[in-house]
């Protein structure tokens, strides 16, 4: 057996290799995971082709034929609302010669017709018709219309408006994948009656960084807020120093998903710079408490961040939702949306439409100070001597607590690397076993 193509080397099958890169007990990470192309190639197979990946918000595809295009790893995918109301998700690549079938970011379509030879696919990806079909009439053409549809994403499911998909038919169900993390997700998704919706479209930017750096940032890095964002905070809320309240803040993680949060109720909201929105959050607190309980009502709008493994992040209160799409080991495409509770009055939604991206989007006042850190961190890994030095992830490793209400692995205070290490442990676990698309014949014998 021999190696061929830029497939995985045999070593990737050995659990030990990737685990050595991530030392969750010792609190250190090998920098090569942010740089090496072979590791990146393995991530596409073992992380992005296996995990449940965020595809769309249901409000983007409300009517039959509504579609958005997105990526699972580097695989282009069409997500659309089918006639019966079900959601279809399938590869955006023609089964004939591979051409991209849908070229728009979003829209409404009755069917997707490939530009090259005109093969037409339905809202479920099924092959509807091909021009000159009589040329395929003979059985030697091996033309089986039922197998020539756009390859469906193996599983598609929604959680309270967020649509996810996985290429792995053997992946556990979405509810199991999210597990108890839904407790934290609900602060974003279920604080008010009627659920959420996305306001307007999407802002996108290409960053020269490895995708894991922003993902780990949102999963647990409250620590950077005080230093990185002091100019932004000063501009938005005329307050330079952010003080951590470790007694009333936590980090928690479940299955590699993580969130850090305070209980102040308005610090994230305030950063938008609109007292009206703060007031709205204050007014609605009691109602939210009735839905989610007192504790989560206090989380709602508090200083916090969260990431659903591998790459879906959000900020409650700031109302930003975003994914970090991998586009190479040193390149990430950020896509950001404004998410709002449907129950919010129009005035609040209209404020969020401009205020959320003003604070958090590629050119947001606060976000502008993040991107450079991730890019320069990535770039530094180019050095062979630099790559030899492991990074320190030891903060607050002693803060693990049991909490009567908070599920998952819980830590006292926002200042810890615990969630980040849980993120990388999940990463290492997945990286240490083959993904669904690895072929035996592409591997070196051990």
């Amino acid at each position, binding site marked *: 057996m021999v190696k061929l193509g830029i497939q995985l080397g045999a070593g990737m099958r050995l659990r030990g290799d990737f685990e050595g890169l991530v030392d969750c007990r010792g609190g250190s990470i090998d920098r090569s995971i942010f740089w090496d192309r072979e590791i990146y190639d393995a991530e596409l197979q073992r992380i992005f082709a296996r995990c449940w990946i965020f595809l769309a918000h249901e409000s983007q595809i409300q009517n039959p034929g509504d579609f958005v295009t997105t990526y699972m790893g580097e695989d282009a995918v069409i997500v659309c609302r089918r006639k019966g109301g079900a959601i279809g998700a399938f590869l955006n690549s023609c089964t004939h010669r591979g051409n991209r079938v849908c070229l728009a970011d979003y829209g409404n379509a009755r069917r997707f017709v490939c530009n090259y030879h005109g093969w037409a696919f339905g809202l479920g990806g099924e092959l509807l018709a091909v021009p000159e079909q009589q040329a395929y009439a003979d059985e030697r053409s091996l033309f089986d219309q039922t197998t020539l549809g756009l390859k469906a994403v193996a599983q598609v499911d929604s959680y309270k408006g967020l649509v996810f998909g996985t290429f792995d038919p053997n992946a556990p169900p979405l509810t199991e994948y999210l597990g108890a993390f839904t407790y934290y997700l609900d602060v974003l998704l279920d604080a008010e009656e009627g659920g959420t919706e996305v306001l*307007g479209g999407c802002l*996108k930017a290409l960053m020269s960084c490895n995708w894991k750096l922003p993902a780990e940032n949102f999963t647990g890095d409250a620590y950077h807020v005080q230093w990185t964002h002091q100019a932004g905070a000063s501009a*938005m809320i005329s307050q330079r120093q952010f003080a951590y309240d470790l007694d009333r803040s936590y980090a928690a993680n479940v299955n590699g998903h993580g969130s850090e949060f305070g209980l102040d109720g308005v610090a994230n909201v305030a950063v938008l710079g609109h007292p009206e929105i703060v007031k709205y959050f204050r007014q609605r607190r009691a109602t939210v408490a009735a839905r989610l309980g007192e504790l989560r009502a206090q989380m709602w709008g508090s200083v916090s961040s969260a990431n659903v493994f591998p790459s879906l992040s959000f900020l409650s209160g700031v109302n930003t939702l975003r994914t970090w799409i991998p586009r190479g080991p040193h390149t990430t495409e950020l896509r950001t949306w404004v998410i709002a509770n449907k129950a919010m009055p129009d005035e609040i939604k209209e404020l969020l439409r401009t205020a959320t*991206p003003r604070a958090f989007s590629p050119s947001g006042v606060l976000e502008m100070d993040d991107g450079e850190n991730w890019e320069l961190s990535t770039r530094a890994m180019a050095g062979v001597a630099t790559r030899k030095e492991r990074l320190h992830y030891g903060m607050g490793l002693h803060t693990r607590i049991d909490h009567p209400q908070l599920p998952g692995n819980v830590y006292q205070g926002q200042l810890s690397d615990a969630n980040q290490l849980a993120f990388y442990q999940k990463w290492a676990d997945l990286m240490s076993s083959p993904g669904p698309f690895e072929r035996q014949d592409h591997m070196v014998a051990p």
Partner: protein
Amino acid sequence: MSEASVAHAGISRDLRDEVVAFLYREARFLDHADYDSWLALLAEDIRYVIQASPALYRRDGGARENDIAHMDDGLADLRRRIKRFQDAAAWAEDPPTRHCHIITNIEVEATDNKDEFQVYSAFVNARGRFELEDVIMAGRREDIVRNGEDGLRLVSRRVFLTQNVLLSRNINTFL
């Protein structure tokens, strides 16, 4: 879709020259990160928008005017951005960006309001940072410029980029 081709109908040469000078001066202020001088060019009621540029099929129409935008600001919002730009703790602005705002294709047209003018322009924007970074964007602008007691002021700007996904991490300037 044709359009009458009378050049600069109803616009005096003096005004045209003023507008051109106004936009060139604005670009120079931005190149020098002289944001206080830039603010002085804006009307109190300015609306400043840098649109998103999604790829959409013709049959679905263009992007909605009130879609989410890279920037959709009033004067107070712009002041906040500038407050950050000028903050010594804005780490990502130090060392400073090396800016260049190339402005061309300036056209001035009358509007229903005799004191306000529709101004078209196009631009190339170059930004250098650190050692190897040098980022170029191009696009169009549609402005409303008001001729008031204290000279010209920018009342409205809508910026269209050719980039859908920004090919750089942010827009740390005004366009």
